[in-house]
């Protein structure tokens, strides 16, 4: 019953807004926590039949065509984990009761949107759920209504509208040429023969997804949105929203609908490589903690796209594995950023120093995340980057493999610089009395660090259970 992951949160949000006074406001946190945990448990323990049921008829009233394959399950798990972390950070950083209530409601809406994106089987339905997620994200970014947040939300809104226009045009062209909007129907029609109109449609859709995923050269909105958003919203955006709306959707459509044509592979490889380099080099020059992480995100997403561009089963497995790993360690880094911003009141790394002495858990967990991002063994990021580089080498893309390795060195450089400026060295006088962040921020940081270590150490099991089944989708 994949539709449960949409219907239950929807019923929950309606119940939360019944006029029952402050009780519902208090319940909103627990209910969102329940949805995240329920989703994680279902992904981990529900049998395969549960997810395969394509058409669900709820009392003859609602007939949905939803399903979840191994790729969807990886994303559903990542969504649950990031929603959990976002909720806890939000509960500590948003003091006002009304703001927190609106935040949890919008978080549930974003959850519904992302779950829909991951499980739909139709291009138009995909568009509808992309819009749900985008609208919830705009509002969440501007939650504090300060100038920077509104500017970040506005940039995201405008570029997202351009992406939407491109995708809707693409859907129209595909509907016109293939007569259907279902994934399977469009895929069959495209494999039967292509023309200029289909090529234009594919190019428009892929271009729209590049904007949504914040890939170079469509990344202009991303650093502003990530850095200007409230701490908890940055966790959500960087952790899962752009990955689901842009990167997952791209992987899904290329795998299941458009196919790995030589043109698509060439574009993915080129955009992936440029994103890796531009993101990493731009991250080197940042002094705002969250902007540095935003550029790092662009670079890491580049790895995913580069791996996808190989078009081989190993490359796809690497892309999906890095997608999951990146969701976890980037969420963690933004949780750490939230802890620092909350305790010091600044994001300027030049004003910090020696914070690890006063914030040992934040400092320790950020080391785990940055080592994983840089691809240091035995952490999760090492294995996914290794698979990506092997996939590139085995498919004959030697130059791209070298770029991937060299960019890892740049990644290590900017994260070492960040650690030195923020956590190591002599404690800055201004922050001599600060304390470790509150439990609601420290707890998700620790859990995410444990996941990063566990995925790395249990790599053979994770690979066989979650990642390799994705390859089977290529048929």
């Amino acid at each position, binding site marked *: 019953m994949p539709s449960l992951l*949409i219907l239950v949160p*929807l019923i929950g*949000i309606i119940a939360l807004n019944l006029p029952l006074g402050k009780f519902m406001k208090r319940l909103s946190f627990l209910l969102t926590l329940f949805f995240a945990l329920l989703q994680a448990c279902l992904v981990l323990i529900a049998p395969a039949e549960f997810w395969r049921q394509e058409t669900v008829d709820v009392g003859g009233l*609602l*007939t*949905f*065509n*939803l399903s979840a394959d191994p790729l969807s399950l990886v994303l559903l798990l990542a969504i649950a984990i990031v929603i959990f972390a976002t909720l806890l950070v939000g509960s500590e950083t948003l003091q006002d009761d*009304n*703001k927190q209530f*609106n935040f949890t*409601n*919008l978080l549930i*809406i974003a959850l*519904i*949107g992302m779950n*829909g994106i991951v499980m*739909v089987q*139709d291009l*138009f*339905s995909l568009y*509808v*759920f992309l*819009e*749900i997620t985008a*609208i*919830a994200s*705009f*509002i969440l970014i*501007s*939650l504090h*209504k300060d100038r920077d947040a509104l500017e970040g939300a506005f940039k995201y809104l405008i570029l997202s509208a351009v992406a939407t226009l491109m995708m809707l045009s693409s859907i129209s062209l595909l509907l*016109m*040429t*293939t*007569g259907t909007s279902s994934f399977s129907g469009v895929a069959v029609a495209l494999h039967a023969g292509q*023309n*200029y*109109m*289909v090529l234009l449609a594919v190019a428009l859709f892929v271009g729209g997804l590049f904007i949504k995923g914040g890939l170079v050269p469509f990344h202009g909105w991303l650093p502003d949105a990530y850095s200007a958003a409230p701490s908890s919203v940055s966790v959500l955006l960087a952790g899962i929203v752009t990955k689901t709306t842009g990167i997952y959707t791209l992987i899904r459509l290329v795998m299941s609908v458009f196919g790995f044509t030589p043109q698509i592979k060439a574009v993915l490889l080129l955009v992936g490589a440029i994103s890796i380099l531009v993101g990493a080099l731009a991250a080197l020059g940042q002094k705002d903690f969250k902007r540095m992480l935003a550029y790092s995100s662009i670079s890491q997403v580049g790895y995913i796209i580069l791996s996808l561009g190989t078009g081989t089963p190993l490359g796809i497995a690497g892309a999906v594995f890095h997608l999951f790993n990146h969701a976890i360690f980037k969420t963690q880094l933004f949780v750490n950023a939230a802890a620092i911003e909350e305790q010091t009141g600044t994001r300027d790394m030049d004003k910090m120093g020696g914070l690890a002495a006063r914030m040992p858990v934040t400092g320790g967990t950020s080391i785990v995340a940055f080592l994983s991002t840089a691809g240091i063994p035995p952490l999760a990021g090492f294995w996914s980057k290794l698979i990506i580089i092997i996939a590139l080498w085995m498919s004959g893309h030697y130059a791209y493999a070298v770029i991937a390795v060299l960019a890892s060195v740049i990644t290590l450089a900017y994260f070492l610089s960040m650690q030195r400026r923020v956590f190591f060295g002599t404690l800055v006088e201004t922050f001599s009395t600060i304390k470790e962040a509150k439990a609601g921020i420290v707890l998700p940081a620790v859990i995410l660090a444990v996941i990063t270590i566990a995925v790395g150490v249990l790599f053979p099991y994770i690979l066989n259970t979650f990642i390799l089944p994705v390859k089977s989708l290529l048929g």
Partner: protein
Amino acid sequence: MNLNICLLIALTIAALWSIMHENLIKAAIALAVTSIILTTLMFRFASPLAAVFELSVCAGLITVIFMSTISLTKPLTQTEAVAHAKERLKRFWYLPVLLAAAAVGLGLAAIPLNFTIPQAPAPANVRSVLWNERQLDLLGQVVIILAGVFGVVVLFKEKVKEKS
């Protein structure tokens, strides 16, 4: 040049007018005109229901909402409006040039558009399409409306409270 091409040209001019005009009320009227031309095109392409929606919602309801909102704002002074227009012209002078170049390029490329359009299915009952075939999208619309409600609450309601 047939009527559809004329309408498309008029649509482009009205759309450009709506985004280029510094007076918000005139821009909103131009947007309504854009919707009316689009409605005509939809009628001509045998999509009467879509045309009715376009006319009633986009040309009607949205224009009313825009007008109401604009009436609550303070307009630019004459000097500010002129300065704003000059600044915009300075920044975006290349956009019409790019548009013209793209049109000429596409015309010269002579892209073959001889693809086969599949036989259109028999006109479906709209009620059946909405309530039986696209239920998931309809549910999605409900969630979008909910998100919109929270958007209004987050962005406007608290502001009123702060002011009071």
